[in-house]
């Protein structure tokens, strides 16, 4: 079918924990989200068939819309035959399954290995070991074991004992270093010689193209060797696409297709299955480019966390399969010290108790928070998972001074992932985003309330208009606008003064907004959060006068501004806690502040008295 004839789309997303479905149809000359369904993923025991969850999620839509979408055999009727039966297109995105276990071998940690790591991080890979000629590679591997400057024997042993689906060999710019690359290829060859044939991983060479033939001569015998173009052909230019394409294809072959029922599911659609991370990346790139915004998207999954940014024409996406909040929580606990999670909890609990609690959660990653404390612990984990990936992306941006300066000054933050979309109060989501992303200046917060953010990239591939209209109208809940100055001052002293003037020329002023007296200038003290209710759809002009230590993004501290802002379900959130965010080291003081901030956002902290 052509784009012109696609008027209805059924999209499904198979995640590690849940499977969701969405029906998009033409309503009054516009594509709208008609219904959604969600159920648990079923690729694992006891179901052992991923299509069971897909069918269950779609059946919910059938029930809600009184339509027939699935044939008796379970597959969708395509194309749509009449008003009540079938859809024109069926698209699938997936993040189910384990990541590709990867070992990286290269010469210099901050050149070719760093490029390879960045290229690999755009798909679902987990880097286990990094072997380089120079020193350790902690910053890249995020806690993975490193083997810098070791003997050939140690490297062989590491490779022999390692758990890897793929080994990525890089090194040398084109025409650059040759001998060390050959040496590394030889070491790899030796390690493969002592591995049983069945245990040999795929080896991809993406290094100096001038020695590609020699490297092939050394490794071709393995039967699993492939070459792609150099990931770092010259010092200041990266070529990530060939590696990304190869890894993505391997991920499909080795991790997705072996999932019970996956092949059957993929045969139900005439379109290729898209990895959820790639689909999300397309969405963020579109939002940034089309609307000329600096956008950051965070997508928290059980098995991975995805952070995607678009600044001008520069895009960056990072998928960390060791930073999920459920299935890969044990790996996250290795990458992030327990104190970092602990600092977000507004009550007394020892780090050891918290560690035990989180290990129990990782034993049962699909379980739900029961008490308020459970919920707060989940959000503490969410904050640190996002921060881990955000910091890594920020490090990339910092190498480009012109853009690096803008990092954090987001126009839009998009939040996705079940832990956020099922939050009992939108203020929880706002707090997680403020604490983890730390936006400064003036930022809008959008929540993927329909759980379609991961589907939009796949929908765009078959019907771009539908994806655009969905993104504008139905997918996101506007949480509100954040005004957050950068800088620090003295607690309690004024950080900025704000005056809000409602724009009532287009909308009637809502009773909530009218109740607030916006005529006076408001003092916002440093260290506080204040919420001014301004419902969705209503606009206001905000006059901001930061004091001399605070910068709201207009070039220098103390410079004021007038800006038009739009309301949201929470309104205008003024976050005067300063950037970068600092939490008091003393427990009592920190607990009090955390409790205060939550109550400023209308979240009452009510301890249930649980002991962990």
């Amino acid at each position: 079918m052509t784009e012109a004839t696609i008027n209805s789309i059924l999209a499904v997303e198979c995640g590690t924990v849940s499977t969701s479905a969405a029906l998009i149809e033409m309503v009054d000359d516009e594509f709208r989200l008609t219904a959604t369904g969600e159920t648990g993923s079923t690729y694992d025991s006891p179901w052992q068939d991923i299509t069971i969850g897909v069918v269950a999620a779609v059946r919910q839509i059938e029930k809600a819309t009184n339509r027939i979408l699935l044939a008796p055999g379970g597959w969708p009727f395509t194309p749509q035959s009449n008003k009540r039966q079938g859809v024109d297109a069926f698209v699938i995105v997936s993040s189910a399954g384990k990541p590709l276990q990867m070992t990286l071998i290269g010469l210099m940690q901050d050149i070719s290995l760093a490029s390879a790591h960045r290229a690999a991080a755009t798909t679902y890979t987990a880097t286990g070991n990094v072997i380089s000629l120079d020193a350790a590679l902690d910053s890249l591997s995020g806690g993975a074991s490193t083997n810098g400057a070791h003997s050939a024997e140690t490297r062989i042993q590491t490779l022999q004992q390692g758990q890897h689906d793929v080994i990525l060999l890089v090194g040398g710019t084109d025409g650059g270093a040759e001998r060390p690359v050959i040496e590394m290829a030889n070491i790899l060859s030796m390690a493969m010689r002592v591995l049983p044939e069945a245990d040999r991983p795929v080896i991809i060479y993406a290094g100096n193209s001038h020695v590609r033939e020699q490297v092939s001569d050394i490794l071709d015998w393995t039967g699993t060797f492939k070459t792609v173009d150099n990931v770092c052909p010259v010092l200041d230019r990266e070529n990530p696409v060939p590696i990304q394409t190869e890894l993505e294809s391997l991920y499909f072959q080795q991790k997705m297709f072996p999932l019970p029922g996956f092949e059957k599911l993929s045969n139900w659609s005439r379109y290729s299955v898209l990895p959820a991370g790639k689909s999300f990346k397309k969405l963020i790139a579109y939002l940034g480019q089309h609307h000329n915004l600096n956008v950051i998207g965070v997508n928290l999954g059980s098995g991975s966390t995805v952070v995607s940014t678009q600044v001008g024409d520069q895009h960056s996406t990072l998928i960390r399969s060791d930073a999920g909040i459920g299935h890969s929580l044990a790996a996250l606990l290795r990458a992030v010290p327990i104190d970092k999670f602990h600092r977000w909890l507004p009550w007394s609990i020892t780090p050891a108790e918290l560690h035990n609690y989180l290990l129990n959660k990782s034993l049962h990653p699909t379980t739900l928070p029961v008490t308020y404390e459970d919920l707060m612990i989940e959000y503490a984990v969410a904050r640190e998972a996002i921060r881990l990936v955000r910091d890594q992306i920020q490090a990339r941006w910092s190498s480009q001074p012109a853009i690096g300066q803008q990092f954090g000054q987001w126009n839009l933050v998009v939040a996705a992932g079940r832990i956020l979309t099922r939050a009992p109060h939108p203020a929880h989501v706002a707090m997680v985003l403020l604490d983890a992303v730390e936006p400064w200046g003036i930022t809008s917060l959008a929540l993927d309330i329909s759980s379609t953010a991961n589907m939009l990239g796949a929908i765009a591939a078959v019907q771009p208009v539908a994806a655009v209209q969905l993104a504008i109208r139905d997918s996101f809940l506007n949480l509100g606008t954040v005004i957050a100055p950068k800088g620090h001052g003295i607690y309690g002293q004024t950080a900025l003064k704000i005056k809000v003037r409602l724009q009532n020329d287009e909308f009637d002023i809502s009773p909530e907004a009218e109740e607030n007296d916006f005529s006076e200038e408001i003092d916002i003290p440093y260290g506080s959060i204040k919420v001014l209710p301004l419902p969705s759809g209503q606009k206001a002009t905000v006059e901001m006068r930061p004091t001399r230590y605070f910068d709201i993004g207009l070039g220098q501290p103390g410079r004021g501004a007038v800006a038009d802002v739009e309301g949201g379900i929470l309104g205008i959130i003024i976050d005067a806690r300063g950037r970068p965010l600092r939490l008091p080291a003393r427990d009592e003081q920190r607990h009090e502040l955390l409790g205060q901030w939550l109550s400023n956002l209308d979240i009452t902290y009510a301890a249930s008295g649980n002991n962990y």
Partner: protein
Amino acid sequence: MQLPGIIINSDRKIVITRRLPASGEVLVKRGQQVEALDVIARTEQPSRYRVIDVARQLARPNIDMDRVMLKAEGDTVKANEAIAIRGGFLRRIVRAPVEGHIAAIGSGWVLLETERTTVELQAFINGTVTRIIPERGAIIESSGAMIQAACGFGGEAYGSLKRLVDRPSDLLPPETIGENVKNTILLGGRTVDEETLRLAEEAQVRGIIVGSIDASLLNLDPPVRVRVVATEGFGDLPMSPYTFGILATTLGGKEIAIRGVTPILSSTTGKRTPTDPPIIVSTSRRRRSGRTAALSLGDTSREEIRPGHRVRILRGELLGASGVVDSIPSEPQRLEAGLLVPIAKIKIDNVVYDIPWANLEQVN
């Protein structure tokens, strides 16, 4: 609706897969009766290598290895024995720096394996070998009790089960660890601390079963040689009375096998490690005709959950507790955390609790 399952069963037919970490020799035959401590397969794994740069030592970067090598792959060499030679006017010899055998010959190099470690695989349960996995191991069937645990450390152990506590919430008293516990597996209650573990190690205890373990015990330095299995999880959780009941009454004094591991932690190290789950198994030495369906790890019931089915709670204050389904409300309910989710009403000791469906597993 279905649930993931866990095996806590006192008398079922049991199927266990035993597999070497690498290719090796299988020492048993199909149909053979084995006992838990019988070695059923063996392999030797290289544990140390030396790389010999033949090309450099012979001062020929692009050397033809076929022409200079005196030894072939698999050959054993003694220390100082010649392994390669370059003839002619400037004759050069490459000698093995240490004793070993030649693991691989590449272009210009030789990989000498200098140390091997023997890995022996025991049967783990008493039973009958029903299938041979060529070069790797075997599948063994038996009948008896199997309890799938939550976590543990130390690996596998076999011995008779000795109960040292009266209730599942009791702490394992250090003073009870004396001479009479040598070579046994102790049934503790709630948890165990480092001091008690060290005492048990001194008393040559083979293993300990408790409800929970503190995560700090996973990284003891020096590591303790006692194997530990926790049935419920990490922290300070009592053992489920249901599990304790099976261990104390059905298995008390019997020979049992335990596997103390935590797969979620070993899978994050980047190393090739076994991911078999932590379990407690007791099988009879006598052969029995099993009438019940075989139960193997990973098997779960595909039965719809109904009132009366036994389930285990996976989160919250009741973590590890086992009860029966009282009813399944059709409408979702709001939890204290604020989430609106499907729940089941679970009866434990005559008290009915609302438990989110996602926080339950079926006890098989």
